């Protein structure tokens, strides 16, 4: 066997070397190598995209609509998004200058950070949270500053924790409610207190509201709907979770014109536009998708009720998650770290969950369980986790 010798040593950027691969990766590899596992580790809906949405996209292909769209996306789609946000959450964005259709909410997060972060700027990140926020802040040259939340306060933000972390370099606050992985939601009152801090310190807010529709015990409050917040907020959302469209990679950003224009500059050079067939699918979702989405939401709520009650019955402490499709029970009492717990549970009972520490500060001592699985799987998973806990207790004597 001959080894090709090369003179070239990889010349990677310091920025990319600074960030770590996602902690989820290891679990993915481990779980993928096993058969017959029940997975509560999936961060996406268990429904397929409703047929009318898929069919609309097929129709667009049949008509040969395969060219670029405007950089910001089809105007028709932007108008539908604008109308939806106004009617549903009372936030008003101009379709022509304040809405950008993105390649999933993930691109939206990246665009927003790149548009506002200068080297050395600090961005407050409310944790536990989605795994991409801190790495994307770093890539944009900023410094992620975690603001932990905890089960004692239902994973809501305490404004004093925010204040403690403010410095002269703090530029922005990254919010995400309903939250992945905790399922926490924040009502108008709590958010208004956050808004006070934001206003006093002239922060920009990035509000990731991708799970807004998946709110079960009341109405979702959109952060820009709070007085004085629209002018300083970039709203990030999309179709993945509410319409079961994760694989389409289609989302949107809304922001006041100066922010939207800045983000559009990056988007037009880096992405040109979101995929055209996905935009037609999204347009159908906005126009005729409500009814089927509501059915899915009822189903998530029922499974949330089932799972949270059951997980408490088998002996874990769990707050009541008001949104998304995750429960975030505490496993601290077992004496295991979340990584040990998740790994042993997987090997012993073939149930995959995600250890909480991968979601940042405040996540250690918890596991993320997605209840976007069939009732049959959830019932079986509860039995197996119960058996695992019993074993742990017995071995402790």
């Amino acid at each position, binding site marked *: 066997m001959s080894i090709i010798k090369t003179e070239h040593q990889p010349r990677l950027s310091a920025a990319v070397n600074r960030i770590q691969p996602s902690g989820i990766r290891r679990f993915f590899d481990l779980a993928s190598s096993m058969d017959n596992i029940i*997975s509560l580790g*999936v*961060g996406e809906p*268990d429904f397929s995209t409703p047929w009318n949405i898929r069919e609309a996209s097929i129709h667009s292909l049949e008509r040969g609509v395969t060219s670029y769209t405007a950089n910001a996306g089809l105007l028709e789609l932007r108008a539908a998004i604008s109308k939806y946000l106004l009617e549903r959450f009372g936030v008003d964005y101009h379709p022509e200058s304040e809405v950008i259709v993105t390649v999933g909410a993930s691109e939206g997060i990246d665009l927003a950070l790149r548009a506002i972060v200068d080297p050395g700027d600090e961005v407050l990140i409310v944790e536990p949270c989605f795994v991409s926020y801190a790495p994307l802040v770093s890539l944009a040259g900023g410094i992620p500053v975690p603001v932990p939340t905890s089960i004692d306060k239902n994973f809501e933000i305490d404004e004093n924790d925010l204040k403690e972390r403010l410095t002269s370099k703090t530029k922005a606050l990254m919010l995400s409610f309903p939250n992945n992985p905790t399922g926490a939601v924040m009502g108008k009152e709590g958010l208004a207190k956050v808004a006070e801090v934001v206003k006093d310190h002239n922060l920009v807010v990035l509000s990731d509201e991708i799970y807004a529709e998946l709110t079960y015990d009341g109405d979702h409050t959109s952060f820009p709907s709070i007085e004085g917040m629209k002018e300083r907020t970039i709203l990030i959302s999309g179709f993945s979770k509410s319409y079961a469209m994760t694989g389409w990679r289609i989302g949107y950003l809304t922001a006041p014109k100066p922010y939207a224009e800045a983000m559009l500059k990056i988007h037009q050079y880096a992405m040109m536009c979101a995929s055209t067939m996905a935009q037609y699918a999204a347009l159908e979702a906005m126009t005729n998708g409500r009814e089927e989405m509501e059915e899915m939401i009822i189903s998530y709520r029922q499974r949330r009720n*089932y799972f949270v009650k059951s997980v408490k019955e088998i002996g874990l402490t769990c707050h009541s998650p008001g949104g998304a499709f995750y429960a975030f029970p505490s496993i601290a009492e077992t004496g295991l770290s979340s990584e040990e717990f998740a790994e042993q549970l997987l090997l012993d009972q073939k149930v995959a969950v995600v250890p909480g520490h991968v979601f940042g500060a405040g996540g250690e001592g918890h596991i993320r369980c997605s209840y976007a699985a069939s*009732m049959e799987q959830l019932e079986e998973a509860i039995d197996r986790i119960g058996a695992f806990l019993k074993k742990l207790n017995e071995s402790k004597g």
Partner: protein
Amino acid sequence: MNEKERELLSLIEKEGRMKEESLAKMLDTPTDEVAAMLKSLEKRKVILGYSALIDWSKTDIAETVTAMIDVKVTPKRGVGFDEVAERIYRFKEVKALYLMSGTYDLSVSIEGRSMSDIAQFVSEKLSTLDSVISTTTHFQLKKYKHDGVIFGQDEEGDHRMVVSP
């Protein structure tokens, strides 16, 4: 009928075999209350029964033949279509019967062991009823979807990655 009952019904319409304890948790209601609701709904004949949806073509039991028959009848003064409908639905071969708008009156769904079984039923039992003017028989060739459930290959399995953020 209250909100909880409606939610219970739409749940068990799809998942008839779900355990009462699970139903209770999903509805955020005590188990004995759910049991009482089910009893009451059964008593009020809102819930008429519980049955399994079976794809017989996958068993070794000989498949039955199903036909949909469009029937034109003469309604009778005072009882309308109800009298003849009752005479038809009492035959055990009749699996479903609907009064329809449009060019015919009754839609009869019949199951038999063979086409000749059904032909015999139509010619001897159905067509000979006094009120029946005409019948048009359509045989089912293949069942794609029934009661909201797709039959045959399920190509929409779970394609998700086992762990994702």
